[in-house]
């Protein structure tokens, strides 16, 4: 058995492939190891393969190739109800014909637990999500946020060590969603459970996770901590998908150490941090975060003139759309700090950034 990916992992995907039709792989050679107690998020656009991975882990889909291990044991042939994995579904999947208490009691009943023990556990789980008074209600009588809490409590009530969450907050409004993010995070920390969380919302992923696996096209594009993911994207997809990003396209002219000299499509030449740009002659995408661009200052080797196209006042900062190197959608965030530069539409100004903030990635 191949255990080369990570023998320490609590959950291990080992060269896993999945195809539905025998022609197209929706998951391509997935290797992933999740440590015990970790909060790992699978992030990606729809159709990227993240949900399929979750369903394979839960046992509702079978891997076409490769092994999935849970606590060192392959679980490919174990049916879902014997895996002991808690799960929270996108639309909560609370049983409408049962009360909240019966919903929570269900996993305990199928485990043949005694009545008093069941009641104690249900009460504890409900208290945990501050829903202690709602045991007698039906799911339809609850608000979306309350249903969400019940779904969470139901996944936790039978003391599963691993809990899977499939876009659990997708149906909530923004404020409630942010609030629930913290609650889930705190529950994770206090209970010490392992959570695998699937979402397409990058801010959610960054807020909650220990590590984030960014999926696209059936492949993990990058697996790292949230700050790494934002500040050190390894390829153009991740840079674009996580946070806001300015793109400049060009061709690599030379690479010296970690510095790449790039000729942009409008003819100008600039320097960037060589991350994933390949050899001389390759096309490359330069990635610069909007908040890392400095406005004003003197003309230097790294600076460039930009023309203000549009200004949007956003309170804490001003969003400035500029024409830079022929890219008319170049965004610069100007902090609304005391004595910041006041710009006008049509005005030309000098922009600059440090070499480390301009990452030369794949095209």
């Amino acid at each position, binding site marked *: 058995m191949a255990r080369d990916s990570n023998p320490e992992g609590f959950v291990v995907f080992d060269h896993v492939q999945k195809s539905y039709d025998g022609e197209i792989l929706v998951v391509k050679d997935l290797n992933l190891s999740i440590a015990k107690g970790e909060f790992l998020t699978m992030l990606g656009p729809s159709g990227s393969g993240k949900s399929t991975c979750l369903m394979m882990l839960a046992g509702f889909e079978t891997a076409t190739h490769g092994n999935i291990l849970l606590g060192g044991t392959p679980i490919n042939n174990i*049916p*879902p109800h014997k895996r002991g994995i808690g*799960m929270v*579904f996108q*639309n909560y999947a609370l*049983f409408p014909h049962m009360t909240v208490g019966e919903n929570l009691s269900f996993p305990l009943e199928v485990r043949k637990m005694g009545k008093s023990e069941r009641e104690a556990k249900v009460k504890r789980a409900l208290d945990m999500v501050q829903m202690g008074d709602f045991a007698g209600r039906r799911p339809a009588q609850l608000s979306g946020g309350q249903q969400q809490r019940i779904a969470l409590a*139901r996944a936790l009530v*039978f003391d599963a060590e691993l809990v899977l969450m499939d876009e659990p907050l997708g149906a909530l409004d923004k404020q409630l969603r942010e609030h629930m993010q913290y609650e889930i995070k705190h529950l994770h920390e206090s209970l010490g459970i392992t959570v695998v969380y699937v979402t397409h919302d990058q801010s959610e992923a960054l807020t909650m996770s220990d590590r984030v696996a960014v999926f696209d096209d059936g492949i993990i594009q990058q697996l790292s901590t949230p700050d790494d993911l934002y500040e050190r994207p390894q390829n153009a997809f991740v840079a674009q998908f996580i946070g806001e990003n300015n793109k400049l396209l060009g061709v690599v002219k030379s690479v010296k150490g970690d510095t790449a000299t790039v000729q942009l499509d409008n003819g100008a030449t600039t320097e960037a941090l060589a991350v994933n740009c390949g050899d001389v002659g390759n096309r490359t995408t330069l990635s610069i975060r909007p908040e890392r661009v400095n406005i004003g200052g003197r003309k230097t080797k790294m600076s460039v003139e930009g023309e203000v196209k549009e200004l949007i006042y956003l309170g804490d900062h001003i969003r400035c759309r500029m024409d830079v190197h022929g890219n008319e959608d170049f965004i610069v965030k100007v902090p609304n700090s005391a004595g910041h530069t006041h710009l006008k539409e049509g005005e030309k100004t000098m922009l600059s950034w440090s070499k480390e903030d301009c990452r030369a990635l794949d095209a």
Partner: protein
Amino acid sequence: MTDATTNDDGIVRAADGTPLKKRLGQALFRSRLRAFGLVTPLLLMIVMAFLLPVVIFLKQAIYNPTFESNMANVSPVLAQWDAVSEPTEDMYAALVADLVQARKDKTIGKVATRVNRELSGTRSLFTKSARKAKKLEAPYKEALEDISKKWVDIETWKAMKIASKSWTPAYLASAVDMKYNADGSFERKAEERRIHLKLFVRTMEISIIVTVMGLLLGYPVAYLLSTLPARTSNLLLILVLLPFWTSLLVRTTAWIAVLQGQGVLNDLFVVFGLATDEDRFSLIYNKTGTLISMTHILLPFMILPLYSVMKTIPPSYVRAAKSMGATNWTAFWRVYFPQSIPGIGAGGILVFILAISFYITPALVGGEDGTMISNFIDFHMRRSLNWSLAAAMGAVLLVIVLFLYYLYDRIVGIDNMKLG
């Protein structure tokens, strides 16, 4: 911004001073009127083409003026008569006058038929006597007695008294194997004539079995349809619906070809040694035949509501149950099945109510023990021409259905039924 203001008198008023409630009423009235206008054509059609004929037909179950309207002289006399004392000469005179008139109007046959329903053998008595009535002379009692001794039999007069009541419970009583007497009492019919209760019970029995069989066969099919990808399930749905496009008669006769003694199924049984050539199974012209073909014919009515309800049950419920440790069976029984109950209710009621009034199929394949109450309603409509009894049996059937509907509502709840 207050368009509505509260005055001292506590009435909320609109900007122009009219009470707000009145204003709202006016606005709502217009929209209600428009809504009513939209449904009026359908409402009229239902009233004219459905409710009215049903009411008129059911009225025949308790109202039959044949005797009273054609025997104008003797009817009021019969109403006064106590059904115990000897008929008087006045009564005989009135009778003869009516017989003469009915003969002239050519209504004597109808009157005779009506009385004959109460007492067998009086039909020819009336038609025969009416032919001679014109020449009869007083005293009429003796004159009629000369024609037939039956005229001095008090039973004949009792039968006339029953028939002379236009509003009568006699037919409803007959529909439940009771006899309505001239003195207003009821008694059970002679045992060898009690047929209807037996048939009502059998009709219920067949309908219940067909419903249960339909559920057992239809549930897995509906489940399969609801879980398959849309393209495949649409194709299979067409197969389910295919029988709808075939005439009921064709489907029933197809079953005859399959099930009869020398039919396909029995031939297969013989080939596989399950039956001998001499001793083939009786699968048709009995209750078995009725059950098999009715179950098949009504199956789509079970599958469609089940399918449309199952289609709305997200697969995540069963997945959630399994993720919590439920086996396939527990997940189905505790989680999936309860949510499909509305479909079972709708399909069950639909199939049961259709089955209870089924008539062509049992007539063709039912034999003796597979015929149902509707076949007897048909018999009285078309053969014995006893429309009042047919109406009475229809009314009893209607009452039974309404009662079952009420029971269903009490036990399961009618809101708990949906067609999708």
